[in-house]
C-alpha cells in the first residue's frame, strides 16, 4: 500500500512542481523586457566612463599632446602592444631633445590591463570607452595615437619634468625610473571620484 501512495504522491508533487515552474515563466512573459537595444539606442546608450575600449592620446586645441616619448608605457606593457618611436632633434638653444615620432598601439593585441596609463609620468595617454572598433582588416587595428603634425605641450618652468629619457636607452631595467611616479598617479587619478563614497 505504501508503494501505491508513494506512486500517487510522487505523481502529484511532480505535477505540482512542474506547474510551479510554469508559473514563473508565465510571470516572466508579462514582465517588462530588460533588453538594451543596441544599435537602436546608440544615442542614449551609457557606457561607463571607466570602461576601457581603446587607448587615446588627448590632444588640445593647438594639436599638442603631453607625450614625451619616454617609452615607459612601452616597457610596462606585458605583451608589446605599444611601440614608441622617437627622434632626437636640436632645439633653438642648442640642446638635444627627444620628441615623439609615432606612438603606435595595437588594438588587436591590447589586454586593457591599464598598466601603461597608470605608469605614464605625464598623463599623456588614457583609455576611452568607444567600443565600436570592429574592422575587416587586421592592419587597421594598429593605430597611431599621436595626430599628424602634433607636438609636445610646453610645460611651465616650475614643473620639473621627471627623468624620462633614460629608460629608452636602457631597455634592460625599465620600470625603475617610472615607479616613483606611478604611486602618485594611482592615487591622484582616483582621488577626485572618491569623496562622496564614504559618508559615514
Amino acid at each position: 500500500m505504501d508503494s501505491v501512495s508513494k506512486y500517487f504522491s510522487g505523481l502529484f508533487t511532480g505535477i505540482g512542481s512542474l506547474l510551479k515552474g510554469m508559473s514563473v515563466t508565465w510571470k516572466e512573459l508579462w514582465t517588462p523586457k530588460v533588453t538594451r537595444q543596441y544599435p537602436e539606442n546608440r544615442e542614449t546608450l551609457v557606457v561607463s566612463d571607466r570602461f576601457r575600449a581603446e587607448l587615446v592620446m588627448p590632444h588640445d586645441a593647438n594639436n599638442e599632446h603631453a607625450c614625451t616619448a619616454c617609452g615607459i608605457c612601452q616597457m610596462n606593457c606585458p605583451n608589446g602592444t605599444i611601440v614608441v618611436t622617437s627622434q632626437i632633434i636640436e632645439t633653438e638653444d642648442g640642446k638635444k631633445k627627444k620628441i615623439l615620432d609615432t606612438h603606435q598601439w595595437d588594438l588587436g593585441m591590447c589586454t586593457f590591463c591599464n598598466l601603461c596609463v597608470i605608469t605614464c609620468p605625464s598623463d599623456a595617454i588614457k583609455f576611452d570607452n568607444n567600443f565600436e572598433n570592429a574592422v575587416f582588416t587586421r592592419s587597421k587595428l594598429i593605430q597611431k595615437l599621436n595626430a599628424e603634425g602634433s607636438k609636445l605641450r610646453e610645460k611651465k618652468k616650475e614643473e620639473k619634468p621627471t627623468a624620462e629619457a633614460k629608460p629608452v636607452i636602457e631597455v634592460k631595467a625599465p620600470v625603475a625610473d617610472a615607479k616613483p611616479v606611478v604611486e602618485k598617479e594611482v592615487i591622484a587619478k582616483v582621488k577626485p571620484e572618491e569623496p562622496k563614497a564614504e559618508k559615514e
Partner: protein
Amino acid sequence: MILNYSQPLELDGVSKALDTSLSALPDFWRILIECVLVGVVILTTYAVIALILIYAERKITAFFQARYGPNRVGKWGLLQSVADTIKILLKEIIRINNVDRFLFFAAPFFMVCASVMTFGAIAFGKGLLAVDFNIGVLYVTAVSSLGIIGVLLAGWSSNNKYSMIGAMRSGAQFVSYELSAGFALMTIVVLTGTMQFSEMIEKQQYCWNIFNGHISSMIAFVIYIISGHAETNRGPFDLPEAESELTAGYHTEYSGIQFGFYYLAEYLNMFIIAGIATTVFLGGYMPIQVHGWEGFNQVMNYIPSYVWFFSKTGVLIFLSLWVRWSFPRLRIDQLLALEWKYLLPINLVNIVVMVILVLTGLTLTDLFPSLF
C-alpha cells in the same frame, strides 16, 4: 444538421465550386487535376504554417526569456523566417564521404513526407479536408509514425556517433510514446464511436469531447498532448537532438536544405499534434455553441470555421512552447519510466473507465441531453 445559414467567409464553397466546374471532365482528369491542386495548396500551407510557427516560437520564447526576439528584419522581425528560408535554400549541401549516400539523402524526405501525409488528413475548416477517410484516426496514427524512419535512417546513415545515439534514443522514445498516443485517441473513438474526423467534429457541436467524456477525456487529452510532444521530439523530450549532449543529434551531419527539412518537419509535427488534439478533443473547427442560445451561436458562426481551428490549435501550440521553455530535458530512463510507469497504466485504466462511462450512459450528453 450542419449550420444552415450563409457564411460569406467560409471557404467550403471553393471546393464545391471546384467540384462542379470539373464535373464535365472525364474521371481520370478530374481526379488528377484535383489531386494536383489540393497537393499544391497543402504544400503551400505547409510551408507557410512552418514559417509562421518558426517566427512565433522565436518570438514567444524570447518573451518567456525576458527579451524581445527577432525585431530587426522587417516590422517586428516579421520577415525573419523568410530570410532564414532564402538563406537555407541556397546553402551548400555537403557531400559527405563514408556515408550510405542513398539513405542519407532519402532520410529527410521520409521525415517531410510523413508529416505532409498527416498534415493532409487534418480538417482545417468546414469543407477544408483533403481526404475524409472513415478510418481517419487510424490513418493519422499509422502515417505519423513513418517520420521515425527518417530519424532512424538519418542517424544510421550519417556515420557519426552522435547521430547514432540520437537515432537510437529516438527509436526507443517513439516506440514507447506511439502506444500512449494511440490509446489516448482510442479512448475518444470509444466515446464517439467513429474514426472519421468529419463525423467526430460534427458530434462535438455542442459538447466538445474533452467535456463530454469529462474525467476520462481530460486524462486522455493530457496524455495525448504529452505523448504527442514526445513523438515529435520537442522539448522537454528532445533527447534525440539534445543540443547540450549530442551537438545536434541525429541531424548533425545534415546541412543546407536537408537540414531545413528536419527543421520544418519539427515545427510542422508540433502543429499536427496540436491540430489533431484540436480535432479530436476540442471540437475541431466547430465554433463555441451553446444549446438554446441562438443569438450567441449565430455570432459565433460568423467567425469562419478555419479561424476557430487555427485559434484552438494556436492555444495548444502556445501551451507546448510554454512547457518546452519551462522544463529541463528528461533523461532517457526518466522518459521511458514516464511512459511505462505512468502514462501507459493510466491510459489502460482510462480506456476501461471510458468504456464504462459510455456503456452506463455517464457521459455529459447522456446525462443532460437537454443541454446538448
